[in-house]
């Protein structure tokens, strides 16, 4: 996706102006450099985000940095559960974006974040190695059921139920009555992908966003829509750089952010 720079700049200007028109004064600003109404953000913005958001968020972060030369955006990409654990143990951060609502709830319950906003959703797909050792086949027309796709004796990797992608996997497997199918419960979606890429399993349930690049073949299936997980984002109550945090979430929720998310394979929340 290539956006003309002028247009990009204009949209960002508008966005920032909107953000600053709200309640809080710009944090850490050391003078009006940009001129006009553009608030200058500075310091460091720390974003804790689910690993599946790595590409999209990195791009958005660069956009924000381009607009605010004094601002440095730092990301901590990891499993949502691990991030939630770090936050409840007191890790300093400005923004938390999780891969499911349960992990956001953990942080909210700990009194660290107020209202969260959903910004995207992700669905599972059935990924398989390039040589398709189990000979998985899709019916000629329509979106198949996961039950139709899975032969009886295949080796299947899924995420552990404790992590968001695993909770969704559990749900779809229950729907088709195949909770006995997994051979391994991986600690995160990377573990599933690794085993698929190495050809050590016949198939794995991974996020749609993980296979968007087309390197790993995958089938969509009907049950995934009902078991999608939705991504909430929140500015943390004790955010050291609240202004920048708000600017980031605004960018994420803007048309610009939505387009980036869709391009990466996410659905609307």
């Amino acid at each position: 996706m290539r956006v003309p720079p002028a247009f990009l700049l204009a949209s960002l200007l508008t966005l920032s102006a909107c953000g600053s028109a709200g309640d809080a004064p710009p944090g850490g600003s050391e003078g009006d450099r940009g001129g006009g109404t553009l608030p200058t953000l500075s310091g460091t913005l720390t974003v804790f985000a689910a690993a599946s958001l790595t590409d999209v968020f990195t791009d958005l972060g660069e956009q924000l940095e381009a607009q605010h030369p004094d601002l440095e955006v730092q990301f901590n990409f990891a499993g949502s559960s691990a991030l939630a654990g770090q936050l409840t143990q007191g890790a300093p951060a400005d923004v938390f974006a999780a891969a499911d609502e349960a992990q956001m709830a953990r942080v909210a319950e700990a009194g660290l974040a107020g209202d969260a906003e959903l910004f995207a959703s992700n669905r599972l797909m059935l990924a398989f190695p390039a040589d398709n050792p189990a000979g998985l086949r899709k019916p000629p027309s329509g979106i198949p059921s996961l039950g139709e796709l899975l032969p009886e004796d295949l080796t299947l990797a899924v995420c552990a139920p404790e992590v968001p992608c695993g909770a969704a996997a559990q749900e779809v497997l229950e729907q088709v009555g195949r909770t006995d199918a997994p051979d391994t419960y991986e600690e995160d979606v990377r573990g599933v992908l690794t085993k698929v890429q190495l050809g050590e399993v016949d198939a794995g349930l991974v996020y749609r966003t993980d296979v968007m690049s087309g390197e790993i073949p995958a089938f969509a299936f009907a049950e995934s829509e009902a078991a999608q997980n939705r991504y909430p984002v929140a500015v943390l109550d004790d955010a050291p750089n609240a202004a920048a945090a708000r600017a980031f979430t605004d960018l994420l929720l803007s048309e610009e952010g939505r387009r980036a998310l869709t391009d990466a394979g996410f659905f609307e929340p």
Partner: protein
Amino acid sequence: MSRSREGAPVPAPLLVPAAIGVLFLTLPLLGLLVRTPWSQLGAQLTAPGVGQALRLSLVSATLATGLSLLLGVPLAWVLARSRARGRTVLRALVTVPLVLPPVVGGVALFLVLGRQGVVGSWLDDAFGITIPFTTTAVVIAETFVAMPFLVISVEGALRAADARFEDVAATLGAGRWTTFRSVTLPLVAPGIAAGAVLCWARALGEFGATITFAGNFPGTTQTMPLAVYLALQRDPDAAIVLSVLLLGVSLATLLLLRDRWLGRAGAA
């Protein structure tokens, strides 16, 4: 243990860092114990998956230690005694698992023993054996990561042992194998025991290579560290209880063995 020095005062330049070292190593442990929700202990202990994971951990770590002894002691002998040219390189290679991130070790094991791997694909074609996602894979992953600890420890013991005893044995008609069996092995037994303990402890705590190469499935490949890590994702309290349980069992095992060994050494 040296009796003659018992009661000798420790010099302050040693005492202070030593004390800090003890605190550094034991405070996290203490933190774990303080945070342990003891009321949950009973419920966690009787939870069905926990016993399974604990049993699997103990069995696989013990098997891995056995396998390490079988392969590692002869390997240590070769490293310590042979005058082969490539010995230095060999030693460096053998210790690679020490520096390799265990997850990478797991991927490497796939490349060899996985069903697409060099050896694994042959095993699959010829015998229909697939190793990944089985308890065998757990033992292999743990052995891969833990064996270098044994090898290094035994090699050190062999180097420190007086090689002249082997000369004596030779002049008394003992061939290389008899010498190894009836002189060298008993001489380095304490080193082997120490190495085996290190190896067992490392195998018991193994996480990265195991979850990568063996996967995570309750009853077959889910060892305690995997169970702890996944519990941490959802319920940190449960994870703490499981950790304390693993800690208790391993400490008890080591103390028990230590007493037995010390008892024997004392009789000697």
